């Protein structure tokens, strides 16, 4: 069955450093992969979408890579800030419709 794995433990980093979050998937070949941010008690907010033919995508301090051979996506936040503290969800997607399968998410804690 399809499986999505994200770092289960919280990632603690110091302000200004680069945070790197990992998303691994097995048993399917997604055409797209999305990353969302979720703050406690709130709905997820879309950050980036990367297609299978794109190796890397950037948006401001965010960078996402997508390696279909390794079946892995890396999500980087450069110059991290305490306001970046949240849970980050990945959603590899192969379906035709807007039905996303999410990983459990990784909690990022950025300390001043």
């Amino acid at each position: 069955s399809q499986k999505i794995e994200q770092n289960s433990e919280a990632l603690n980093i110091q302000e200004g450093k680069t945070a790197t979050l990992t998303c691994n998937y097995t048993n399917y070949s997604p055409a797209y992969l999305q990353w969302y941010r979720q703050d406690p008690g709130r709905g997820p907010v879309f950050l980036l979408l990367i297609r299978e033919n794109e190796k890397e995508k950037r948006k401001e301090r965010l960078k996402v890579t997508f390696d279909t051979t390794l079946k892995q996506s890396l999500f980087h936040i450069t110059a991290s800030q305490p306001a970046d503290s949240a849970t980050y969800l990945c959603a590899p997607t192969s379906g035709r419709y807007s039905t996303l399968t999410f990983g459990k998410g990784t909690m990022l804690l950025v300390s001043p």
Partner: protein
Amino acid sequence: DAGVTQSPTHLIKTRGQHVTLRCSPISGHKSVSWYQQVLGQGPQFIFQYYEKEERGRGNFPDRFSARQFPNYSSELNVNALLLGDSALYLCASSNSGTSVRTGELFFGEGSRLTVL
């Protein structure tokens, strides 16, 4: 512009009861999806509707049902509530019914259901 709105924001029910959750998508969005998020887990897909037709159903029992109205708003109904139904129920809208190529889902803030 208003985002996706959901009601109620919080509710408490007892086992065996029925619940109806409501969602209004972003203006112009024709697709609505429902997700269940249990504490510590990622959102899990329940239903997707586009133009009032069901386009997808996740692995949930028949106690869960939904519908979409002509104004594209949607309801999620859960019958015979179980303790395990306690979760954050998220509604998401998008401007594409047939593909995620154009991008993201826009989520509401969710309805927090507690079943006692």
